[in-house]
Structures are given as structure tokens and as C-alpha cells.
């Protein structure tokens, strides 16, 4: 049994405990543990990518209890991609946070590490109840991070976010209760085995449970009509946390993909449930996100709405439930997560550099370091709107090509091209307001003397963190071929289903089951 799959959960969890236990050693100790953990996660993620890249599925049975009786962690290519993506987002966000965000309140480091543990756990688990537990771990940490530093705006947005997610958790548990009652198992692979043999009379309950699960994942992914919480929550919190939250919507999308393909993909009465709904809702989400971005008065609000657009785009591509469109969606997922996370950090840097006007899209003269920030903005804007030559363009082309022969392919084409156009338009408009136009009042802008500018402490860390994340999209463009090969293999592996089931349950999965009344 390979122990690798437990490491991405164990490392941040241990570090969180260490930070809490060493609380009296002060800030320096906490920051050191925090950043060392981030550095440790990089080689571990690379190892997992390499391990899963061979095509095998590594199963880690906790306590060596055999599935389906014990809980398993399953590492396949899809999980490895998501864990690596979490690390890629988390490490720059951690570096950025140590530049000052982490001193605004207590226990920031522990909460951030717990959130990483929860994210990685959700990506690796092969058991529905365990998925629920890791969802709660990452949610509880996110509740704390969300209102970290307090202030009425954060508390207001946090209250709505917590209430909504608690209701979501209750729905999740209802679905789990129904599934266990009907199928007698919560192990994803075991569900796939049991589902086709289900008597006709039980179909309605299982369909209901699946629909509830989809609703919960749609809430996490911010799919219309469950998307209205997202702009408030992401804008109110601090930039480093918002950057990490960029991957939280992707947890919903990942869970939807994993559960609908592996757990419920083996019987026709559950696979046809999503088909009529997912694509129209995804297209409506794209429309709503675009309109929200157009109406935004702050750069951070624009970015939060771009997250909503990306959810719509991804689910539109995933709605086809075909291996090749899922591969394109996975490439786009990696791209959009990196770009939106970087954009949240950049919006915060621009806000800091502009002084009193923060990141509002009002005229106010160029910010400090306009050339450097503007260059970063250019890269992100090109990537986010899907213009050549960066990864957004490649991702969109892949998605468009993969859906062109689908029934609703034309609608997806129109939605993606229109939303790309709107994004380009509004990011250009925002840039002219942020970087070019002079203040409307006649008060003289403070003269900037080169060489004598003062930077608040921690600016260098912020700059490094920003460069790391902004570099993601160009890197993804250069490495497009190997990345796409990997995501296509991941998608094929996921849709083959049988290797997953065999890896978890072994060759012989004829467990004697007692039929319950």
C-alpha cells in the first residue's frame, strides 16, 4: 500500500496542530511553520502527479480496513491534478498572507493550513461521508478565514455565507442518509457496483438523493440560481484568502464530476437526471456572471464575477459527459483557477498602490508602479478574456472544439464567445480607469520621485507571490501539450470507471449483501 495519498492531508494538518500548540512562540514561529509547510507541499504534489501519471490508481486504506468497510483515499490522475492545483494556489497565497494579512487576527495560520488539509482531503477521498467531513473541515476553516480581521463588511458577508453553507450541509446529510438507506454503502466504487442491481421501486429515492447532492455541489460551485452569495463573500474577505477561495468553487465542480461519473454513472436512471438541467443553468450562469462583471464598480467585484463565469463555462463543457469535453474542461479549470487567484492578489496590490480610491473603477490617475502592475494586469486580462496567445485562448479553443458536435454546441459557442468579448471589453475599460485617466479634481497628484518611494514592509513578499501566480498562465501556455496530455489521460481514466472500481474493491467484489426491507 502506497502511503503517498495521505501526505497532502497529513502535512497541513500536523502543521496546523504545531502552530496552535506553539502559539506562545509568537508570530515568527507561526510564519516559519506556515511557509515551510507550503514548501513541503510542492515536492509532495509533484510526487503525486508523477505517481498518478503512470496510469495506476493508488489506494490508501485508512487503518488498513478493506473497502467498502473502511474509508479509502484514492489517488488517480484527476485527484493528483486537483491537489497540485491547490498547492499552486496556496503557496503564493501563503507568501502573500505573511506580508501582513496574517496579523489582523488570531489563528490565521492554523485556519489556512486546515483549509488546505480539507481541500486536499476532499480531492482524495473515495467515500461520500468522508467527502462530507472534508467539506466541513474546509468550510469551517473558510468561515474563520472569511471574517478574519473582522469589520462590518466581512461579518455581514460571512453571516450569509455561513448560513447558506450550513443549509447546504444539512442537504448533503439528507442525501447521504437516503443513499445509505437505499444502497447500503457510501463508498463511491461500491455504489457503482450496487446501483445497476437496484430494484425499480427504489429508483425514485436514489434519484432524489442524487439531485440533492447535485444541489449541494452547485451551491459550492456557484451555479445559478445558487451563485448570488459568491461576489459578496469573495470581495469582502482579504486578498490572500480570496485567492485560496478561487479553488473552493472548483471543489464543487470536482465533486460533481467525481460523484456523477464514478458513483452514479453506472445506471441510466441517474445519468439522465442531469442532462436536461445542467447545460441551460451553466449558460445562464455565464450570462449572469458577465452582466454582474459589467455592472461592477470595483476590480475585486469584476474578478468575483469572473469566477462565476468560469463556473458556468466549466459546467457547460462538463454537461456533455464525454471524456474529450471533460479533458478540455480540466485544462480550462487549471487555467481559470490560476488566473482568478492571481487577479484577486493583483486587485489588492492595485488598491494599495492607488491610495484612497482603492480598486474602485473611478478615475484617479496612475497608481504607484503603474508600469509593473499594468504589465501584470495585461497578462491576466489577456488570459482571463481568452485572447491569444495565452492559456485562456487555448482552453477556450479546446472547449469549443470538444463541444462542436454536441446537440447544444452552438449555444455553448455563442455563450463562450460573447462572454469572452464582454470580459475583454470590461477589463479594457477597467484598465483605462485604473491606470490612465487623471483625477477629475484639480488637486495635484503627489509627485513621485524615483528612487525615494517608500514601500510598506512585506512588499517584496507580495511582489514575489504575485509574480508566481501571474506566471502561471504563460507557463500553462508553454507547457500546453504535456498538460493537455495529462488532463486527457485523467479524463479517460475517470470515464473508464472500471479501473477505479477494481483498484478500490479488488478483483472480486462479490460481497454478500443482505437485502433490507
Amino acid at each position, binding site marked *: 500500500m502506497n502511503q503517498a495519498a495521505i501526505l497532502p492531508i497529513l502535512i497541513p494538518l500536523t502543521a496546523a496542530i504545531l502552530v496552535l500548540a506553539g502559539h506562545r512562540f509568537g508570530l515568527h514561529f507561526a510564519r516559519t511553520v506556515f511557509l515551510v509547510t507550503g514548501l513541503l507541499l510542492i515536492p509532495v504534489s509533484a510526487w503525486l502527479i508523477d505517481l498518478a501519471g503512470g496510469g495506476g490508481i493508488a489506494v490508501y486504506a485508512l487503518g488498513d480496513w478493506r473497502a467498502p468497510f473502511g474509508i479509502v483515499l484514492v489517488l488517480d490522475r484527476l485527484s493528483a491534478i486537483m491537489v497540485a492545483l491547490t498547492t499552486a494556489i496556496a503557496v503564493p497565497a501563503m507568501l502573500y498572507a505573511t506580508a501582513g494579512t496574517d496579523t489582523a487576527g488570531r489563528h490565521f495560520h492554523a485556519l489556512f493550513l486546515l483549509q488546505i488539509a480539507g481541500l486536499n482531503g476532499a480531492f482524495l477521498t473515495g467515500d461520500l461521508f468522508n467527502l462530507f467531513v472534508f467539506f466541513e473541515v474546509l468550510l469551517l476553516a473558510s468561515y474563520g478565514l472569511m471574517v478574519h480581521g*473582522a469589520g462590518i463588511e466581512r*461579518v*455581514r458577508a460571512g453571516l450569509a455565507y455561513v448560513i447558506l453553507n450550513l*443549509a447546504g450541509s444539512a442537504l448533503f446529510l*439528507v442525501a447521504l442518509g437516503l443513499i445509505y438507506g437505499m444502497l447500503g454503502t457510501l463508498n463511491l466504487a461500491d455504489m457503482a457496483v450496487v446501483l445497476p442491481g437496484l430494484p425499480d421501486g427504489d429508483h425514485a429515492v436514489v434519484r432524489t438523493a442524487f439531485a440533492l447532492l447535485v444541489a449541494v455541489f452547485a451551491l459550492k460551485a456557484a451555479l445559478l440560481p445558487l451563485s448570488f452569495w459568491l461576489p459578496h463573500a469573495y470581495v469582502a474577505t482579504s486578498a490572500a484568502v480570496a485567492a485560496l477561495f478561487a479553488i473552493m468553487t472548483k471543489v464543487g465542480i470536482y465533486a460533481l464530476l467525481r460523484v456523477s461519473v464514478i458513483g452514479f454513472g453506472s445506471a441510466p436512471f441517474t445519468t439522465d437526471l442531469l442532462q436536461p438541467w445542467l447545460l441551460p443553468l451553466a449558460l445562464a450562469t455565464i450570462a449572469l456572471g458577465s452582466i454582474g462583471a459589467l455592472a461592477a464598480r470595483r476590480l475585486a467585484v469584476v474578478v468575483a464575477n469572473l469566477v462565476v463565469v468560469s463556473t458556468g463555462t466549466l459546467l457547460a463543457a462538463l454537461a456533455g459527459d464525454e471524456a474529450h469535453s471533460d479533458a478540455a474542461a480540466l485544462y480550462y479549470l487549471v487555467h481559470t483557477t490560476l488566473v482568478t487567484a492571481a487577479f484577486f492578489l493583483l486587485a489588492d496590490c492595485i488598491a494599495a498602490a492607488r491610495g484612497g480610491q482603492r480598486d474602485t473603477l473611478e478615475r484617479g490617475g496612475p497608481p504607484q508602479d503603474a508600469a509593473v502592475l499594468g504589465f501584470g494586469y495585461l497578462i491576466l486580462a489577456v488570459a482571463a478574456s481568452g485572447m491569444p496567445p495565452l492559456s485562456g485562448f487555448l482552453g477556450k479553443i479546446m472547449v469549443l472544439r470538444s463541444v462542436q458536435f454536441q446537440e447544444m454546441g452552438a449555444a455553448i459557442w455563442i455563450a463562450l464567445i460573447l462572454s469572452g468579448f464582454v470580459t475583454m471589453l470590461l477589463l479594457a475599460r477597467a484598465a483605462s480607469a485604473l491606470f490612465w485617466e487623471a483625477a477629475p479634481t484639480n488637486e495635484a497628484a503627489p509627485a513621485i520621485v524615483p528612487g525615494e518611494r517608500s514601500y510598506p514592509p512585506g512588499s517584496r513578499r507580495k511582489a514575489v507571490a504575485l509574480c508566481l501566480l501571474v506566471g502561471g498562465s504563460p507557463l500553462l501556455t508553454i507547457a500546453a501539450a504535456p498538460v493537455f496530455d495529462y488532463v486527457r489521460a485523467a479524463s479517460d481514466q475517470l470515464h473508464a470507471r472500471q479501473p477505479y472500481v477494481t483498484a478500490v474493491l479488488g478483483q472480486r467484489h462479490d460481497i454478500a449483501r443482505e437485502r433490507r426491507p
Partner: protein
Amino acid sequence: MEFLFAIAIGVLTAAAIFLVLRARTFSVILGLTLLSYAVNLLIFVSGRLTIDAPPLMLPGADRHTDPLPQALVLTAIVISFGMTAYLVALALRAKGESGTDHVDARETGG
């Protein structure tokens, strides 16, 4: 027994939904608590109602009850308890910062 259980879950859920849709944080918290009770009962009953049977394979016991839902319920109770505690703290904070217990942390209209 099944009938009683179903009615209890239904009434709890209905009351919970009514309370969650109120605009005051205290009612919402009570609603979410009731909802978690309903959910806990539902999970518990997913292992079927078996009366007077041990959850273990004991010598001499001819039937047994499913132990897994009991473990699931225990986890769910602990999590919902923690979440509710956090929500109460957050609601008090919102009340302290805004001076109102409205869920939007501001009075809107009536």
C-alpha cells in the same frame, strides 16, 4: 413506529424551513438547529428501525442493528454542534458591530 418517525422528521423540517426563512439571526439559528435534528433522525433511520438488538455480533444474539448510521450520526451531531456554536458567535459579533440582529446586518424597510 415508522409512521411516528416520519411525522417527527417532517414536522421538524417544516418548522426548520419556516424559521430559516425568517429575517432575524436568532430564528435562523434555531431553524438550522431543528434542521440538523431532523437530518440526524433521518440518517439514524437509514439503517432501518430495529428494536432491542445489539449493534454488534454478540454470541447468542440472533439479529443485530446496523452500527454504521449510529457512527455517522455521531459525526454529524459533532459537526453541526460546532457549526452552530460558530454561527452563534458570528451572529453576536454582527449584532455588536451593526446594532441589529437582521441577517443582512442592516435594517431594510420594515
